[in-house]
């Protein structure tokens, strides 16, 4: 009897150990894919794994990563934000208008300093974010539709600002006191480009909120079970609104970075960026149903997309094939995600089981 019981618990412990291992592999799959891609491209293109190229790569990634991190909270609540690309375009155009056209006041045109320009542009984006939040929480519009609407509204507004034209020469002049805008996205701090700094800061804030603060836990709770969240005393509407505001803030930063890097604001900036951001979020293992996922995952997802794109360019793969491959990767990622949740459901009893065995 004893030996039989012992062997059973041994078997179940072995099963539990392999269950844990399989789950760990599946959870870390985004990292594994990233490492695989890095190794692959480094082997195929010698100039890929150089400090210079990696710096450029990271700068590209920063754009997608910022949008993806903002998007993650929205997706965790069970929503989606399709308007981020348009908001990025709007923020760039607002900055371009303020820098080149100024604000007419008492029949004198005032040119606000760069800090003010950045602030006003971001505030404009927050207004769109607030509109998203209001539509979703108060008006009861489905997030997909609400943000699809604001996608068009923000894009139209961006086009209206300049009547569809580009604002060039955002360098500003000393006479107007409006120089310094290019530094926003082009300068370096400790040899690291400013957009990468912004990505790191936003990531740090988002990570702390998600992992260490009640607000983050409430976001997960709302995505997991909105009714239960309300009954647990969570202010569902405020929390949801906050996620849309944060997403629009990130999008606003992206628009300013791009305008600053190009020293020009074009109203079509950021078109289809929302799709890249959603792809990064999903690659990072966040469930579009809400409640499950992580900020770190989205960062890694953004890197996977960035590395894939840059690497394929370096290998000289046709642009059309690049698009196809990107699509394949995204679909595979979601398929694996489904596999994970199914496996997880099946493996969790093993975990519980083995603990009972040990306890006995």
């Amino acid at each position, binding site marked *: 009897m004893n030996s039989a019981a012992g062997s059973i618990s041994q078997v179940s412990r072995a099963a539990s150990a392999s269950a844990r291992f399989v789950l760990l592999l599946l959870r870390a799959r985004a990292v594994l894919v990233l490492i695989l891609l890095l190794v692959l491209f480094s082997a195929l293109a010698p100039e890929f794994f150089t400090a210079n190229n990696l710096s450029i790569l990271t700068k590209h990634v920063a754009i997608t990563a910022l949008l993806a991190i903002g998007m993650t909270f929205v997706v965790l609540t069970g929503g989606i934000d399709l308007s981020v690309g348009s908001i990025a375009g709007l923020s760039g155009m607002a900055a371009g208008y303020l820098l080149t056209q100024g604000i007419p006041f008492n029949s004198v045109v005032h040119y606000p300093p760069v800090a003010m320009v950045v602030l006003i542009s971001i505030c404009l984006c927050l207004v769109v974010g607030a509109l998203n939040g209001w539509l979703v929480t108060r008006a009861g519009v489905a997030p997909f539709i609400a943000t699809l609407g604001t996608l068009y509204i923000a894009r139209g507004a961006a086009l209206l600002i300049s009547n569809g034209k580009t604002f060039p020469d955002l360098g500003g002049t000393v006479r107007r006191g409006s120089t310094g805008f290019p530094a926003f996205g082009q300068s370096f701090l400790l040899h690291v480009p400013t957009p990468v700094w912004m990505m790191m800061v936003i990531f740090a804030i988002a990570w702390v909120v998600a992992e*260490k603060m009640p607000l983050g836990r409430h976001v997960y709770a709302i995505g*997991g*079970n909105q009714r*239960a969240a309300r*009954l*647990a*005393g969570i202010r569902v509407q405020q929390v949801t609104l906050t996620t849309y505001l944060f997403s629009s803030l990130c999008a606003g930063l992206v628009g300013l970075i791009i305008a600053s890097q190009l020293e020009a604001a074009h109203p079509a900036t950021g078109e289809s960026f929302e799709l890249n951001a959603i792809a990064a979020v999903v690659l990072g293992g966040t469930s579009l149903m809400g409640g499950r996922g992580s900020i770190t995952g989205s960062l890694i997802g953004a890197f996977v997309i960035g590395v894939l794109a840059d690497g394929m360019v370096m290998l000289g793969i046709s642009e059309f094939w690049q698009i196809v491959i990107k699509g394949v990767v995204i679909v595979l990622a979601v398929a694996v995600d489904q596999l994970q949740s199914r496996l997880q459901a099946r493996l*969790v009893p093993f975990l519980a089981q083995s603990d009972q065995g040990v*306890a006995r």
Partner: protein
Amino acid sequence: MSRATTSMPDVLLEARNITKRYPGSVALDGVTFRVHRNQVNVLIGENGAGKSTLMRILSGVESADEGELFLDDQRIVLDSPRDAAAHGIAIVHQELLALTNLNVSENIFAGRELCDGTFFIDRPKQDARSSFALQQLRKPMDLRCETGRLPIGCRQIVEIARTLDQGSKMLILDEPTSALSASETESLFSAIVDLKRSGVTIIYISHRLHELLHLGDQFTVLRSGRVVGESSRTEISRQWIVERMSGRAEAASAGERTDVSTNSAVLSVRGLSLAGSAGDEAAQTALHGLNVSLRKGEILGLYGLLGAGRTELLEALAGLRPIASGEIALRGKTIRIDSVHTAMKAGIVLMPEERQRDGLFPDLSIRENMMMSSRSTLFLARGEEIGRVNQLIADLHIAARDIELPITTLSGGNQQKVVLARCLLCSPVVLLMDEPTRGVDVNAKAEIHDILRALARRGLSIVFTSSEIEETRALADRVLVLCQGRIAAGFEHSELTDEGLFAAASPPVVSSMANSLHPASGHPA
């Protein structure tokens, strides 16, 4: 093995020596279960005793590892629910599967639509057969009504009508009354009696002993995957069931009752009114000027039929439903409640009725589920959380091996205790509980009752609703009976009787449980 069953009434179906193993556990261990023709066969057991596994095997959803099924002494093999249906075996699941977006008639024929020889659905024929099936159940309803707009009791009838139309001779009802009010339960019982008369054999699973004693003809008790008792109604008692289910003598459930009549009032509600509304999800009963007062350490039961306004009253107090008029005072101070958050801050906490829908975060761990409402710091203090969680796990006897595992790894009773722990972590003054032991087995129920009494002794005031008269009587110091949004009567514990509660809860025009369904068995005491 071929033991003659002549001493027993005619056996329709026999499951012989059924064994079913799952990784790490044996769900059924050589179970022999006999289903008697034209009788209500009751299957009883605690959560995890193997009832549902056995029913899944009988309805073809799963197949047994060992053992055989005999229908009318012919060996049968059931590989799918379709096979079972072909043999006339149908199941009405605990979680109703009605397609809420389709109408009654469409539901009855979902997946087996009748065609008029062409490609088109023969609606008149479907309707005719639907209304015939519903008439058999003495529950005619509008066939064009969307099922989602029907009360749960009617949806259940629709499901039963579906099985009737399929020509089922054996019907499995898995906890059919867990979501029903007393009046709906009554009408279900009369439907079951009618079915029995028309020659349908019934397997009935429930946790509610008084129902089983009222309705059952043959009793089989499962414990830990084995049959531990088998008998007919005439030979058994409540005691017999409880002892076999739990494997020990029934604990004295009453417990000592402390006198709270001299304690100060904690909560006083004056003239609380709520606007009524119709609709599917948003339907609510209007409340008309309710006055409720609650003493410190008192357990107040709210009793009433479905739609009497019990849930509405609790949810209004918890800030979930906007109040039309009325005044709520907590410890002498008038408070304004406009959201769950403000109610919680004031000290009024609601433990919701439907655990799966309103209580649990299935993606999150036991610890995170428990700590969801307590928020006092800017950052989460993990170490402190673990300490408090472990403390509550010990206090409430929650059987959790690892607090970082998903909440879904716990049994129903333990999940319920986690939700209770979450409420307690808000340090409530008044705890509101809507059906505190719904879907929980007998032992866990007794445990939860003990916990609630202990909490009350420490000064917590509790208001609970229950559709079980037994539970209301066992737990409450005082009972208010609601009827159509008004308080119909109030009883001190010493004045409580089943008849009194029923009479007060029934609206004047509707007949009560008068014409007894089961004259032979009488009313359960």
